[in-house]
């Protein structure tokens, strides 16, 4: 079992780092608004596929990294990502037997809730961002989920 976890952690951390790099890669401002939350999707994937490898810890620390990089109040992304990763872990057995469309829709729902938690904390800490652009990211995220999960599965099998 230990050996199995170790094998799984390397692609997990690598993919999280790549997703973090994709989250800060400079893009033109139009594309920047459409940028999906890559790191969130990667955390969801590992929460669903191998919950034993510490998906919640990954979610928490990925969230902290996002907080630091975005320069927002510390703990905001960590809270939202932990909640949604826990829910994804809870739903994982159902998700695995879902069709691709249902999976995408579920991921879209989780991403929207994730954005909503961020939105709520923004408001509670006196820094509301009233920009409709932020609700586009979940749509894109749900749309690219099948491609991303297939790519991650292939990387994991290797």
């Amino acid at each position, binding site marked *: 079992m230990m050996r199995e976890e170790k094998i799984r952690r390397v692609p997990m951390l690598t993919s999280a*780092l790549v997703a*973090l*790099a994709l989250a*800060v*890669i*400079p893009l033109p401002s139009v594309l920047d608004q459409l940028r999906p939350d890559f790191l969130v999707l990667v955390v969801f994937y590992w929460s669903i596929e191998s*919950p*034993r490898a510490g998906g*919640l*810890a990954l*979610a*928490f620390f990925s*969230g*902290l*990294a996002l*907080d*630091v*990089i*975005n*320069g*927002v*109040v*510390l*703990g*905001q992304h*960590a*809270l939202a990502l*932990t*909640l949604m990763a*826990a829910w994804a*872990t*809870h739903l994982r*057995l159902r998700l695995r037997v879902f069709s691709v469309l249902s999976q995408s829709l579920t991921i879209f729902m989780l991403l929207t809730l994730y954005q909503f938690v961020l939105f709520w*904390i923004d408001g509670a*800490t*006196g*820094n509301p961002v009233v920009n409709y652009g932020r609700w586009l990211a979940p749509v894109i995220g749900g749309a690219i989920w099948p491609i991303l999960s297939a790519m991650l599965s292939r990387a994991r099998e290797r």
Partner: protein
Amino acid sequence: MVAFRSTDTSGRTSGLLLRCVLYCLLALGLIIFDKRYDHLGKIRRALSFVAYPVQLAVASPFEGWHWFRESVSTRDTLRADKARLEADLRVAQFRLQRYEALEAESQRLRALRENTAGVADRFIIGDIMDVDLDAFRERVLVDKGASQGVFVGQAVLDAGGVFGQVARVEQYTSEVILISDPAHAIPVQINRTGLRTVAVGTGDTSRLKLPYLPTSADVQAGDLLVTSGLGGGFPVGYPVGTVSRVRRDPAQSLAEVDIQPAAALDRSRELMLVWLKPSPVPSGAEAAALPPTPAIAAAPKTAAPVPAKLPTQKTAPAAPGTNQAKAPVSTQGKLPASPPAKTPVQAAKAPAPVKNVPAAGASHP
């Protein structure tokens, strides 16, 4: 594999809930501590050192691409660039010759008048680390701190003009308060007329205001504002902004004047943290005798008779009743004639009540 997972899930559900609650409480605690008590600067900085390699790794290919494009640019482009740069350099050198003569003259005059208003002596470049997105608190984090000699109250400039001042210093970083922060005020002078006043932030990076000018003050849209050096925090003569709008309501005693900041407050990445040159003719005894005024405690002796004289003569008749003109009226007769033994004291105290209120927050947050 399937069997392994199913046994594992039955045992994991409560564990999942427990861990989720623990992590969420931890995150909530972080949010509250970060928001309410501001104690997490060290943790944030430690984490940003972890995030820094990622940002560096992302930035390097783009820098590599720039480098590549520069390497393969054609000979003609390079020749054109070279010609243009040489022309620019000639113009700049020509201007610099004049500037050096002027600076020397200015130094001599300042020495004669025992005026110690700071002149920018040396600076270090600081990079902005992360922009605080709070709309009501315009501050940025800069990657230079106490280990580089940064101190609280230090003037911060960018390529366009005055950016702000250092509000908090850590070992390797410091927090800079922008001139557009509502809690910040900077003593300025209108370049065209020499009129002194105080520019106060609005919370909007594209706008400052001059709240203490009477409706009759000689100010027009397009006027350049430079630092007056009063208060000692900022060097003299650096651009702060241009007047973008003047609204005079005859029913009001004060005009509403908006300023477009000269510094790129929302776009700059690199800032200059400036050390002021110490007085060419130090007058220690006089400085020691001065009463410390909160806003200009840094260098109370820097009240400049030179800027003080001009506005007094020009604006005092126009606006005798306002705060701004109150102090100069009392010293009006003396300033031009008397040696600066006493006048700096009065001049130094004079603007203090006006700018104390907002500036105190900025200098001692």
